[in-house]
């Protein structure tokens, strides 16, 4: 199979037949998906899943396979030119605890189970690429660096990827973040963001006589109302998402503890900072009025940024997706791509298949579109490898 292309048209000509040629990899891919996806991998506890990922790469005969101090797993599919590298990233963590039943069900047209799309499938694709290259007899010019990153979600704050980017010695030309869902997504910019955690405690010694007058729920409710009063501009686009709230024990017991998790996003770094300062003021005010102890912490944050819509990598991705008749959904991302772009590496996030019930226990992916997703990924790799995604000097 041809792997060296001097124009995107050559790659596009190959595309219509590509999904069909990828179908024989089905058993290997689904097996990797089951094996990886059925290992619980909550953020900070990805070790077992990443260990299996590395084991699968070793079984494929990859020469450079290793883990690092941050718990990431890395393997390299060697190219012809040892000086060139393309980075492929899939985060190994999922939003489910190890108490969740991680069994997947494989039906004839879909696969169901917690985390199957986000991101067991992304990781399984990376684990399957060596077999896919072997099946098609492919070798690229650049090395393909397959990174299964740890600590990606929530409080993990992309720490695994950040460690890798800070300490990695290989010069990278471009990055692709692989997500199970959704096929057609294209992310090449990041919004500014911070995730905040507010914890409220009322001293235990407030007796039952005062129940109703004060409680951690009432105090937190006041904070929430004030956060909702913060003016949000339409431009630059900004949002506050109140994600989760916890507090109290039962019907008739005064709540002594409550907490709020929320996220602020904006295209403007200044807006993100301004809202953060407002929240700090609100919390300080509530501490004095409610005789409560408030703690406000920022658990993760990102700076806004992105590559230009006219960047050759973005343009190549869009043309490849059009050729595969995918409806391109362009959206900013909070995930791995933001970290790569912030470090000056041209990068995009691509989805592999159609999915539904995301982050529910019956998260579902469709099997057939996976081959279109894989064809898209290979085509983008060919384009990067052929130097077709570099910005003009």
């Amino acid at each position, binding site marked *: 199979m041809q792997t060296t292309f001097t124009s995107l048209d050559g790659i596009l000509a190959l595309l219509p037949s590509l999904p069909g040629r990828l179908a024989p990899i*089905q*058993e*290997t891919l*689904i*097996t990797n998906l*089951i*094996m990886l996806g*059925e290992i619980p991998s909550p953020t900070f506890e990805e070790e077992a899943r990443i260990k299996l990922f590395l084991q699968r790469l070793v*079984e494929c005969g990859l020469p450079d396979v290793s883990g690092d101090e941050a718990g990431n797993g890395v393997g390299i599919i060697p190219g012809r030119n040892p000086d060139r590298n393309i980075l492929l990233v899939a985060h190994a963590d999922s939003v489910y605890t190890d108490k969740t*039943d991680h*069994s*997947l*069900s*494989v*039906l*004839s047209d879909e696969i169901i189970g917690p985390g199957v799309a986000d991101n067991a499938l992304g990781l399984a694709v990376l684990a399957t690429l060596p077999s896919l290259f072997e099946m098609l007899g492919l070798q690229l010019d650049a090395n393909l660096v397959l990174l299964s990153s740890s600590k990606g979600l929530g409080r993990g704050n992309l720490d695994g990827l950040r460690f890798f980017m800070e300490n990695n010695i290989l010069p990278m030309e471009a990055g692709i973040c692989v997500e199970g869902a959704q096929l057609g997504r294209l992310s090449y910019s990041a919004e500014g963001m911070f995730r905040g955690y507010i914890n409220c405690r009322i001293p235990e010694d407030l007796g039952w006589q005062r129940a109703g007058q004060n409680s951690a729920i009432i105090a937190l409710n006041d904070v929430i109302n004030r956060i909702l009063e913060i003016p949000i501009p339409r431009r630059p686009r900004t949002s506050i998402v109140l994600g989760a709230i916890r507090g109290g024990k039962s019907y008739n017991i005064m709540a002594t503890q409550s907490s709020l998790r929320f996220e602020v996003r904006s295209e403007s770094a200044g807006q993100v900072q301004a809202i953060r300062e407002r929240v700090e003021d609100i919390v300080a005010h509530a501490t004095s009025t409610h005789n409560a102890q408030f703690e406000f912490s920022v658990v993760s944050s990102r700076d806004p940024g992105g590559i230009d819509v006219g960047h050759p990598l973005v343009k190549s991705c869009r043309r490849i997706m059009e050729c595969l008749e995918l409806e391109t959904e362009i959206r900013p991302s909070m995930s791995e791509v933001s970290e790569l772009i912030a470090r000056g590496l041209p990068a995009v996030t691509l989805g592999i298949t159609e999915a539904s019930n995301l982050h529910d226990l019956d998260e579902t992916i469709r099997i057939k579109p996976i081959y279109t997703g894989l064809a898209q990924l290979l085509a983008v790799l060919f384009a990067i490898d052929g130097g077709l995604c570099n910005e003009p000097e």
Partner: protein
Amino acid sequence: MNLNEWIHSNTIHHSQFWDLKKLVEEKQRQGLKISLCLPTLNEEKTIGKEIVMFKSELVDRYPLLDEIAVIDSGSTDRTRDIAATFGADVYLSADILPQYGEKKGKGENLWKAVYQLTGDIIVYVDADIKNIHPRFAYGLVAPLIYRPEVHYVKAFYDRPLAFSQGVRPSGGGRVTEILVRPLFSLFFPDLTGLVQPLSGEYAVRREVLDKIPFPIGYGVETSHLIDVYEKWGMEAIAQVDLDQRVHRNQETRALGKMAFGILRAFLVRAEALGVIGKLPELSTFLRQFQVSNANFEQIAYEIVEEERPPMIELPEYREKFGVAL
């Protein structure tokens, strides 16, 4: 060999067989053919996963299995569709040897597999395993490949999730510990060496499978063990620890039916072998209680433990495989 020696030498952990490349080389050197049989009845949730995994790992990556077959008892869900989608050979039990009629039960499927499948070794794996892994097949087949004196390999599952002291109880499920182990202790003490005699996963050589009868219902595992023990001795039996197996949990009442079927099959065997004296005619009805509006009612379930003869007694089988009685 005394029982302790047997437990020591014939109880094996699957991790001993991690080197699949070596296992496949030895299999090829001996020219063996291996068939995997998955008996099914409405297993759409798990069957696809099992087939995909065995095919990817034990057919494509390491060519250990020559045949993956589903023998279905007439599922009304998508079991057969899904199995065919992922490339298994799918058979309806009723279509195999139709001249001998159709009986309902897992043992019927296992028996018909002996005729339908072509392997020198058949490995049976239940289709309801949630945490399926290639070890469920290679772990059972490996002792047969490496040790010619072993004919029948049974799975057991023992992986403590957390245990701090040096000694802990181990064994089978409720029916094993309450019924089968006491029966074996009384009448076939050697067979108490099996940790989980009722497990549904085992690999067997054809020359053993075609010479033993198959109860079609719950009694098939118990009866196989007794027959293999009587004909070939404990040396022919081995057991492999496959770590943890996750499957559906059964209610106590359902286990009552299972125990009834096993007990019937056991008594018939014990009588035939002269281990116990002549039995009166045994009832086929199990009676359980239910309460409706404070009235206690009995429900009678008929549990018939019919038996299929050794396959070698069928002329069709002898012709297909070129063997004589």
